[in-house]
């Protein structure tokens, strides 16, 4: 470690010469939404059902204000595969790129190039580094998501017992942020009888998540609950528990889509789970991008814009816009949703 001291480029010496971000133009809150805006949605992975719902809602929204939207993207969720798509989107001179980043940093260079060429960049679902986009549409406050997961499961378990987390990939940014908040929440005194025994990774793969659930229950016989803040993970965990002898003994909580979870809510494996409305996420993203591209906003804290049927939104710190509190689904309301 001290080797670094002698010479050469190190973390410390490099930090000084990092370049500043793109200069911002001034906003005109009264400007009308431009017609014929071209929006491109770049999801983590093209065949992820959840992302598909988000993007289709966004494309619908673009039609509302006379623009066009499209979804392009890689078929694998690797950190880098989005980059080549950004490059082509720049060549195609889109007005705005909406991206759910697989890796906050890997997409930075091309996104910055895009912004330099006056293409607006909006991150949604999973953020990029802050200086590589103008806005981030956060589905819900990360802190709120993380802490509420712990609160909910604690209530159901009577603030006692061992719990585990079943996450997506080891590198998923949003997952890791939420997990940090969960760990922080667990430090509070009211959770002194609860213990987080393990964070397992199901890689957003049905089969892997399924097997990880199995392993958790085997390795920790006293496990009382599993939090899975990912749609694939929670469905796999619920499916395993519903078909094993653990049914009724282990609580499953997390983020899932109603269609995936309906069976397990109805058969009692899962009492309740949460998710924001993915359609609203896409809808809001489209309007935010349009507002940017039309000059209504620039991405500075405090600016306001109208997002169609969702009403008015205000830009928060670091260009973040929060969609709103997630919906909690249970037996009583699950049949009202279809996504």
């Amino acid at each position, binding site marked *: 470690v001290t*080797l670094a001291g002698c010479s050469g480029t190190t973390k410390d010496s490099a930090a000084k010469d990092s370049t500043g971000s793109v200069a911002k133009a001034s906003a005109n809150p009264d400007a009308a939404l431009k017609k014929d805006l071209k929006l491109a949605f770049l999801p983590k992975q093209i065949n992820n059902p959840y992302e598909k719902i988000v993007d289709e809602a966004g494309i619908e929204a673009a039609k509302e204000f006379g623009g066009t939207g499209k979804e392009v993207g890689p078929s694998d969720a690797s*950190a880098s595969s989005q980059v080549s798509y950004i490059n082509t989107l720049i060549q195609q001179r889109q007005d705005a790129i909406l991206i759910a980043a697989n890796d*906050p940093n890997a997409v930075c260079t091309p996104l910055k190039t895009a912004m330099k060429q006056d293409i607006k960049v909006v991150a949604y679902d999973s953020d990029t580094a802050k200086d590589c986009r103008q806005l981030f549409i956060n589905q819900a406050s990360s802190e709120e998501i993380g802490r509420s997961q712990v609160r909910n499961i604690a209530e159901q378990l009577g603030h006692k017992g061992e719990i585990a987390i079943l996450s997506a990939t080891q590198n998923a940014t949003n997952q890791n942020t939420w997990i940090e908040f969960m760990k922080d929440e667990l430090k509070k005194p009211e959770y002194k009888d609860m213990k987080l025994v393990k964070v397992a990774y199901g890689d957003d793969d049905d089969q892997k998540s399924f097997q990880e659930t199995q392993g958790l229950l085997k390795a920790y016989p006293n496990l009382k609950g599993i939090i899975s803040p990912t749609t694939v993970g929670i469905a796999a965990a619920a499916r395993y528990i519903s078909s094993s002898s653990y049914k009724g003994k282990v609580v499953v909580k997390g983020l899932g889509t109603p269609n995936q979870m309906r069976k397990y809510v109805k058969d009692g494996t899962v009492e309740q789970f949460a998710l924001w409305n993915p359609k609203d996420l896409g809808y809001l993203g489209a309007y935010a991008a349009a507002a940017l591209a039309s000059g209504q906003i620039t991405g500075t804290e405090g600016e306001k814009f109208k997002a169609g049927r969702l009403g008015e939104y205000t830009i928060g710190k670091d260009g973040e816009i929060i969609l709103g509190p997630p919906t909690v689904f249970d037996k009583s309301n699950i049949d009202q949703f279809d996504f």
Partner: protein
Amino acid sequence: MSPLAKLLRWDSVVGALLVAVFLVGTGTTDGFADTANLSAALNDIAEVALIALPMTLLVVAGQVDLSVASMLGLSSALAGSLWDAGWAFELIVPVCLLVGALGGLLNGWLVTRVGLPSLAVTIGTLALFRGLASVVLGTKAVADFPESYAQWATYTQTVPGTFIPYPVALFAVLAVVAAVVLHGAGFGRSLFAIGAQEDAAYFAGIRVKRIKLALFVVSGTVASFAGIVYTLRYGSARADNGFGLELVVIASVLLGGIDFDGGKGTLGGAVAGVLLVGLLRNLLTLNDVSSEIQVVVTGVLLIASVLTPRLVAVLTERRHRRAATEPVP
């Protein structure tokens, strides 16, 4: 070999396809022939292209290295964690290369000394290296690499006077070296002999084991170098970097007409294969062809790469037979 057969050899066909893709792209698609687009498209395949060079040599010698993408990830993770620990970048690079060489040495040792098939060995080290990568870096992602180096790897900076990014330029130089080694040097002759008939090569006094070992070491080293390029290019060191890239590399090499059974192929073909995959992808993406279709196109091209020469062979055979049955004047 008759001139016609030579013309219809698959590596020439791939070359022709490459030119065709370029011409069609230029003619039909706005922005395709843009230098910015070309630099970006070329730079996008920099790592695949770099790794494809030693892979071509390996496949010609009848071996394969499936662990390259994992080695790329390991090198990336290592670079990230060392950088995070405050090491100088100039020191990190040689350390990563050394680890790459050692990884290659392990592969080579298992293949030559223990006598295991390289396919089996490198499936094992594929898991091992990737696993070590996640041990080294965990869930962390290290991002703040020095601008001066990062610039070097991205397409924003090109070789002065051209649109060629540095990693691609480096690839071009290495490709020439590899071509000379494979087709002009005794070493290359040995590789073909080993790939076609290992026993005979050994009995001709060729140091089969040493050569194989060297190839695996080179492959590991180049893969770990590609890991550094990757890390800088994306400005992000993660354990899962380059996941699944091995199949892309192998597909590109095979597409270029290198025979997987060893002993046949040209480096030019392999390079053309790599470039074809890259440019075609870029062209299709620019035309909003969905990634599903792109995947299918890659597959169909691969199948065509082996089927076409076969068909040509059958057809020429037929012609010969017909010619033979005709009475001699």
